[in-house]
């Protein structure tokens, strides 16, 4: 069973059926206590730590920004963060 992922493009929210894996990903920009989705889609591999059905994020401290990212494996699991890391 393939999982559907929430897809974020530049102008509109849509969905995508993950063909090459069961894994969705999501990336959010965290600032002033708010999360803003930056990228969402299908991840190409099931074996990169994509075990959780829910989006439990971990933070990345890049230059000038804190990003939250998750890999998860259930329909639209990447639509919302279920647990902030």
């Amino acid at each position, binding site marked *: 069973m393939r999982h559907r992922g929430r897809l974020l493009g530049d102008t509109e929210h849509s969905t995508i059926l993950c063909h090459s894996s069961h894994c969705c*990903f999501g*990336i959010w920009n965290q600032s002033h206590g708010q999360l803003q989705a*930056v*990228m969402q889609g299908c*991840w*190409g*591999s099931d*074996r*990169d*730590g*994509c075990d959780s059905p829910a989006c439990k994020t*971990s933070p*990345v*401290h*890049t*230059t000038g920004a804190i*990003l939250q*990212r998750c*890999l998860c494996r259930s329909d639209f699991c990447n639509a919302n963060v279920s647990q902030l890391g």
Partner: protein
Amino acid sequence: AHWQEKRKVSRQNRSAGPQAYCRLQELTVDLHYDFIIVPAEYIANNCEGSCQRPLSARIPHYSSHTVLLLDMQERGTPLRRSPCCVPVKYSSKEIIRFTGEGMQVTTYPNMVAVECGCR
């Protein structure tokens, strides 16, 4: 695997029982770099185990050079670097990385060990 090799297993090896011979083992690596966004970890694998004669019976990837080094050791000539179990084939990995212009999907080569050999 081009070198003629006698398939002789020394008495020592036989009595020691089956040894962990050079082979691919699963290894997960953290990607906690500030420029890597996704994934946070991946299965990179590693090559582990000993390299001993006879190579031909145990592993498909070995060179004449390795057989000759092992023969030298067996004849009692010490080597400054013994044959070692290493990746001989890698595969690539897609990474979402953070650049000055934003996020970018990049395929990095030689990220995952897929075959091992004695060199």
